């Protein structure tokens, strides 16, 4: 279920907002599940929280994808990373729906990553220590703007998918970016110079009134 702890006290969460606006705003019946839509939404929630049943990747490929995603966006002091946000599950789902060429590209990319890992440290990517993984990824991401070799191209592909999966997750949106939108906001607060004051946030001064 969705966690509402990110809602600022200053905002209004959906439930109180619904009360405030009356039932004309689409109220959500969670149970019993009578509508097909409700059933589908419930099933989606179930699916999102279920243990991963792989759809496209093998267990070994999944472990490698999970490892590179976590290396690109790791858990740090600020927020959990790609593993906690289940980015590898998102990628697996994405690949299960993609056309065969895309799947082949990923499978080949995972193999190329392991090959590079073995060549440098004699073990596959999932077996690398954090320091080793950083050293390897530093090498293969050096050309990320214009990747040429298969392993460089795979880094770019994996990073794009990781970014997409992580920053659309609950962890990415709320815990990492601390995104403030998508809530009921009776009055938009802009730069305070808009209200004729000096703005403490940006230091810009109130507009000078033109002499009459």
């Amino acid at each position, binding site marked *: 279920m969705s966690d509402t702890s990110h809602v600022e006290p200053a905002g209004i969460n959906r439930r109180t907002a619904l009360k405030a606006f009356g039932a004309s705003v689409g109220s959500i019946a969670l149970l019993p599940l009578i509508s097909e839509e409700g059933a589908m939404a419930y099933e989606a929630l179930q699916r999102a929280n279920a243990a991963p049943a792989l759809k496209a990747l093998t267990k070994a490929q999944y472990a490698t994808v999970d490892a590179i995603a976590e290396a690109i966006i790791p858990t740090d002091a600020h927020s959990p990373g790609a593993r906690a946000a289940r980015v590898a599950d998102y990628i697996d789902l994405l690949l299960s729906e993609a056309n065969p060429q895309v799947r082949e590209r990923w499978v080949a990319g995972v193999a190329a990553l392991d090959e590079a890992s073995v060549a440098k440290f004699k073990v596959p990517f999932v077996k690398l220590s954090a320091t080793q993984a950083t050293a390897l990824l530093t090498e293969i991401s050096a050309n990320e703007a214009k990747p040429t070799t298969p392993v460089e191209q795979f880094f770019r592909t994996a990073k794009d998918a990781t970014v997409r999966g992580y920053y659309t997750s609950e962890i990415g949106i709320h815990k990492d*970016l601390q995104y403030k939108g998508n809530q009921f906001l009776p009055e938009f607060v802009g730069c305070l110079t808009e209200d004729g004051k000096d703005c403490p946030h940006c230091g810009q001064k109130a507009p000078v009134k033109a002499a009459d």
Partner: protein
Amino acid sequence: MDAQPTPPITPASGPWDVIVVGSGAAGGMAAFQLAMAGVKVLLLEAGRMLDPQKDYKTMEWPYVDMRRHRLPVGEFALSAAEYRTLDRPYGLTPEMQRYKKVMAYSGNRFTRDWIVDEKENPITGTPYAWVRARVLGGKTNLWGRVSLRFSDLDLKAKTHDGFGEDWPIGYADIAPYYDKVDTLLGISGTKEGIPHLPDGIFQRPLKLNCGEVQLQRAIAKMGRRLIPGRAGVTTDGVLNNKYRQRCMGRGRCGRGCDLNAAFHSPASLIFPARDSGNLTVRADSVVSEVLIDDSTGKATGVRVIDQRTHDTMDFSARLVILAASCLESTRLLLNSRSASRPDGAANSSGVVGRYFCEHVMGPGASGILPSRVNTAATNDDGRPQSTYIVRFRNVTDRHPDFIRGYGFQGASGSAEFPALAPGTPGFGASFKQAVRRSYPATINYTGFGEVLARRENRVFLDPEVRDAWGVPVLKFDYTFSDNERKMAADMADTAEEMLKAAGATDISVRRDVLTEGWSIHEMGTARMGADPKTSVTNTFGQTHDVKNLFVVDGSIFVSASCQNPTWMIMALCWRAMDYVKDEMKRGNL
């Protein structure tokens, strides 16, 4: 709301005084004005009925499931680059079979059901990203809400620079109707006193954030104006409409606002009109032609093909009003052919389908404002509109390279998805931190410029290809000219120059023009004018050739201006409906 009432509406369910074809901004306004005046109206919509409470998923987070709002399996939207390279006609060639939708920038998981399937609705000819919504309310369910007035600089553009035609009306003729639309529907904005972007009757404005104030002050030194966006959204609420509530700053208006604070035709116009008891709405009604009695030269009604059953039936009325969207109304006129009207209805001038114009968009720039780096994220995308940089080219001076002008739409600050992340180099904790630091600091502006209404830019009926309902499809012969290309180059230059002036770093300039059609602002293909030889309608959208046939959507525009057309469509339509009511009282219709 309700599905189609049973039994289904048939020609025998009438009689009706007026048939309105289309339920978007123009159709909704026409139906509302007439039904409220006691006229019996039949509104025909090609798509399905819509229930705002069920269909608008305004606040749904992307993480409701693992698919994260991606289009469903097997659904593809054409990208801008693909228009240029793929074979046409869309949907009829093997390469195109995997594509279903042309959605331009408005396509997403929430709007896809409203947008037509390219396989059922192909087009031919030159590439054109023609976004068509077939659902109650049409494109107003997903529109961008930018509501700007035209001025005499636009309406009398020929007087100003010699190109094209002046409109047969001036700002003074339309200003009172702009005021009425502002008051009825609600619009947010600030009074700025800019002659070429007239003020309206505004509700609570949207405030600029710190980054936007910084840019505003920087470009003021160049004599350029950045103003809060003027949004077709009620920020204070509107009277006399139980379906609408005021804006609560949630953002995501383009999916459909379930408070109906944003203007969407169903809740703002159609439902109240239906409550009057004078409006019948028939959904799933694909209109294929206007029926005209050649002996009297009068329209007698329209031919409808049921979208689901493909049954054909003829509905009749004393008056027919086309509001199907610029190109669809044009297609209807062209397809209303007979032995004595080989070129279609109301086309004795031969200009139906010609003078096709829109907006050229795409060039612009984005960057990072150092002053905002590493500050707390603010709620920036909750506003129903961001900011607008007012046209500054060819207003008082003459640019050596091109005529007409362009404005910029854009914003500073954070949105739900950090667009800067894929391009931020590196990986690991430092990458995460870099994204986070710049997240509140992005700034991005995109230009919208006027495309000249040129006779050679046109649409016509394809002699062979038909849609799924057997109606001939449009063939496009439309390209940007040198004027648009030079203007687009200048857009990119000035966007860069202004971001630099504001102290932005990491500026990336977009020079590419998005493909034809991407603006979703089609205009001009049945233009109004005083001379029946060179225009299709009078200033009220009444066709010169068929007195009881009106056209009230973007097709009657004479030129495109660089302002967004929706508010003008509704002001013109209201003015036209006042004329219709007067003429009906006088017994002239």
